[in-house]
């Protein structure tokens, strides 16, 4: 049942030009950055070769590419998640889901799954770029895997926050703005507290600090758990919010 809702959500995304244009824009910008990095690598290749244990092509290209991808998607994911519940509420189609034999959990998980499907497509499209280098170079596949795992977890967190914001309102734009704000706040949490005594736990909460290690090829289970906890928290909050819809009025 969750799968049914998820699939419907994915198909509905592609019915409007939004999904297509998002894919196109993200791909275009990242391809430009990707090519820029390759050029850089080619320029400095002789120097890098001379070094003893200099960085390889994967290390030059990937952390930068995925770091930029994360920031770009931080802007884009709220646009995808804004409609999830807000539009259903606005068009009064929620009653279709409410009067069907579904639990609130199934509705929320279905919606979340739909967005994950879409983000998976984004991820695959981004992944194809570095993978294309396999044709003429050898890549550090371990770093590649950890980086994309990190990006996947990060996108999951983005989607969960966006979904929750969308359950709060009936205006998609409000949902988009507030999820963008929340995500950005999570991202920059560590900026403020640097150097101060209380800054450590703020820095610990920052999304960015739990993404960066993945890009360096470090898989810390704590980082993965952080993302999974964040996702779970916001999904549970969404379920409660939806349940409160029936109570309030």
């Amino acid at each position: 049942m969750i799968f049914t809702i998820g699939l419907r959500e994915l198909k509905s995304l592609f019915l409007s030009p939004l999904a297509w244009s998002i894919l196109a824009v993200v791909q275009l910008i990242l391809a430009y950055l990707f090519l820029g990095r390759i050029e850089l690598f080619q320029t400095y290749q002789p120097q890098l070769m001379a070094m003893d244990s200099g960085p390889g092509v994967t290390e030059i290209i990937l952390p930068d590419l995925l770091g930029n991808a994360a920031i770009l998607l931080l802007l884009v994911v709220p646009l995808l998640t804004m409609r999830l519940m807000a539009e259903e509420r606005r068009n009064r189609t929620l009653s279709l889901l409410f009067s069907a034999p579904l639990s609130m959990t199934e509705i929320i998980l279905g919606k979340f799954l739909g967005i994950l499907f879409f983000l998976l497509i984004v991820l695959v499209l981004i992944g194809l770029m570095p993978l294309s280098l396999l044709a003429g170079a050898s890549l550090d596949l371990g770093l590649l895997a950890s980086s994309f795992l990190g990006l996947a977890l990060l996108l999951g967190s983005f989607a969960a926050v966006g979904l929750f914001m969308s359950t709060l309102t009936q205006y998609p734009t409000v949902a988009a703005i507030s999820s963008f704000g929340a995500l950005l706040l999570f991202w920059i949490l560590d900026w403020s507290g640097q150097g101060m005594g209380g800054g450590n736990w703020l820095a610990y909460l920052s999304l960015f600090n739990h993404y960066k290690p993945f890009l360096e090829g470090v898989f810390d289970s704590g980082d993965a758990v952080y993302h999974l906890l964040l996702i779970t928290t916001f999904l549970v909050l969404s379920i409660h919010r939806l349940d409160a819809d029936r109570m309030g009025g």
Partner: protein
Amino acid sequence: MNDSILVDVKNLSRFYGALQAVKDVSFTIRRGEVLGFLGPNGAGKTTTMQIISGNLAPSAGSVAIAGHDLLEDPRAAKSQIGYLPEQPPLYRDLTVDEYLDYCAALNRLPRTQRNSARDMAKERCGLSDVGRRLIGNLSKGFQQRVGIAQAIIHLPPVVILDEPTVGLDPIQIREIRALIRELGKDHGVILSTHILPEVQATCDHVQIINKGELVLNESIQGLEQHMKSASLTVAFRHPPPLDKLEILTGVKSIQTEKEGRLHIFHEIDRNPTDDILRLAVEKNWGLYEIRPGRLSLEQVFLELTRDSATDTADSITAATPIPPL
């Protein structure tokens, strides 16, 4: 509990803040019954229907659908309902077929039955020709039909329709009414409307709700009894002075209408028909018309909803009778 009771609503109440939209409403629906839910705007019709369909939690009271409590076992209860809200829950950028397939899946119809269920719902609602069109491009009447198709696609025992004929042309209204009557044969149907003839045309049972309270809960036959008021309409070629009639036993008051017709209100258990007939023959008044007065449903409705008079009998006798329908 009786098996044939499909919906059992007990002491339902719902508050919106301090406003009590539904006050202690109880009723039941059996299989094969069409229940008409009448009430002025803001009376609590939609709230009641939203509660029964599981879209809104009641503040107090219980709802059981085919024996399943809606709050304790929502999934089992909801699988027994088809609900068309006031505004049909349509995804405008899907085609009719896609939408109905999705609804069938949401209602957990097995994959193998979905196509036949969709075709049947389309046929019953007259949608066979528009299956591949986008819902957003359909006219209001067709959208309404898609809404109804959505509510009956899984053949639920209970169908709840909130103002299903709004925005339809007269021919479509007739078709939808016929459809509702057909549904009423083997489902339990709750129909809310403020179009009164619709109730008389389609329902077996009528409930009038006003300010959150049920003020009438009657079968259509019982309503007919209500509508036979304690009055007579008579017409004479040579009308006698009114005081001759007023002194007859049981007569309470007389009202003159156009074309020499008179309305005679009498006490319920003392019908002066015999006396009038006898006098008319004796005094040669030239009686050419005499018939019991009847109230229209509209008058019953107005009387009941004007003030929440609980003593329906009194308020109805005071109403003006009109010619039979």
